[in-house]
């Protein structure tokens, strides 16, 4: 179905709203897992930290406040229905304008700078920012946009290694566990640990990031990978890092793994961490302009 020009204007306002709302309403699956972790926590300091998390979640929802100050790197995961006829470059411009409008109109802190001069346009945009990933979905006629304002405390805790086939699954387990513990308090634990396995180096890292966008506690459909997720999550929680790395029973809310096939000589693994607020927000737009919001 061919979309009209008003469709792109709609995408623009939807993207603006996704940015702002994602900073204020923590996804329900994240809230539930924080509540569960708080309820079973045994350490006093950790209990206090959880109470601060829950209070901020509540302020976000009830008082319309930003839960965390970090407006992050704006990242969009866009799924385009195969039956949707649209102009890709107009779509991209609408997403960029929506990002800029959120920054100006709310206003939000622009966290984006050029890499060497550290120049800030105060728009949350710049070369290749926002980051937009595209995927095409057969038999669908909707545009599905998932937005993440990726906080830097956790983004700075990203790790990638080209393991070799002889390192096997054990090499993957060791890499994940050691890097999560090495990240320590910096990514604001308890965290969602995204793991990418396979692919090329760049795809592997993208898979790790994509894994963090899944609802907390969801499982990979492949039973072997799902078992690895559970085993790693359990191992991480035994380390006792706890909320803010001050010690406690829950360090990971979940471990999510996404995979791709790879080269015969490769065994890549990547870790990308999402902090406790694990913010994301989704909008599904139909060709006639109906918007359904979700997470």
């Amino acid at each position: 179905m061919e979309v009209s020009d008003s469709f792109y204007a709609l995408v623009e306002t939807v993207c603006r709203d996704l940015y702002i709302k994602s900073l204020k309403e923590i996804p329900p699956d994240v809230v539930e897992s924080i509540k569960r972790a708080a309820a079973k926590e045994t350490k006093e300091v950790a209990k206090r930290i959880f109470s601060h998390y829950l209070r901020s979640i509540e302020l976000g929802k009830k008082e319309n406040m930003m839960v965390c100050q970090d407006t992050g790197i704006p990242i969009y995961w866009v799924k385009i229905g195969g039956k949707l006829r649209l102009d890709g470059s107009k779509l991209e411009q609408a997403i960029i304008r929506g990002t800029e409008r959120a920054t100006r109109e709310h206003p939000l802190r622009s966290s984006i700078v050029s890499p060497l001069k550290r120049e800030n346009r105060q728009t949350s945009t710049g070369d290749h920012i926002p980051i937009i990933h595209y995927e095409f979905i057969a038999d669908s006629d909707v545009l599905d946009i998932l937005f993440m304002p990726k906080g830097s405390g956790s983004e700075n805790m990203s790790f990638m290694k080209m393991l070799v086939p002889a390192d096997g699954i054990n090499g993957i387990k060791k890499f994940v566990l050691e890097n999560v513990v090495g990240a320590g308090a910096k990514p604001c634990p308890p965290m969602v640990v995204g793991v990418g396995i396979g692919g090329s180096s760049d795809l592997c890292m993208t898979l790790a990031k994509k894994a963090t966008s899944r609802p907390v506690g969801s499982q990979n459909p492949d039973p072997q990978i799902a078992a690895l997720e559970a085993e790693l999550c359990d191992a991480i929680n035994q380390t006792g890092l706890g909320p803010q790395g001050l010690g406690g029973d829950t360090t990971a809310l979940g471990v999510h793994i996404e995979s791709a096939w790879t080269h015969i000589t490769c065994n890549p693994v990547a870790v990308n961490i999402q902090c406790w607020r694990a913010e994301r927000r989704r909008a599904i737009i139909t060709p006639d302009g109906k918007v359904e919001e979700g997470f």
Partner: protein
Amino acid sequence: MAEFRFKTPLTEADVRQLKIGDSVLLDGVIFGVRDGNLIRVFDKNVAPPCDWKGAALLHTAPNVRKIGPGKYEPICVGTTTSMRMDRFTEGLLRDYGVRAILGKGGLSQNSAALMKQYGAVYLSVTGGAAAMETLQIEEIEKVYWEDLMPECIWQIRFKGLGPMTVGIDAHGGNLQADVQQQAKDKAAEILKKMGITS
């Protein structure tokens, strides 16, 4: 684990009482600092335009709204990862007399040794819980170095900032580093149990 409440500026006696794990509330002026402004102070040798004797410095990341020349109100003010600013600890304590560094994620053992030497503490703010922190602000009194926006120096008056957890005390204790070391030991043990040694 004792509970404390102080008004800034802090004295050496104030901070020497604290032990890791204690909880602290702060009232009064706290200075917001971070990468950009500390790089200017220490790497470009520009003296800070405010008095940091006895000061509490917060590793901060503000979202603000401009309401007049040099005047801002908070939208969302939170705390950023401290380790990036670890190398500035010595200068802050030795040259400017800072008594407390507030941030998230902890500082190094080297910073802990300096805090013992000079009489200062690291207070761990709950990262990500910026909504709560923002409501503890009474006023953004002044902003220095606006050209660095948002990495200016922010002079913020708080009422009851916290409760924060003493992460590093003035006696050499470093809670986040201890917890991380224990976690590393535990991880090695888990890997061994999984039969992964090399």
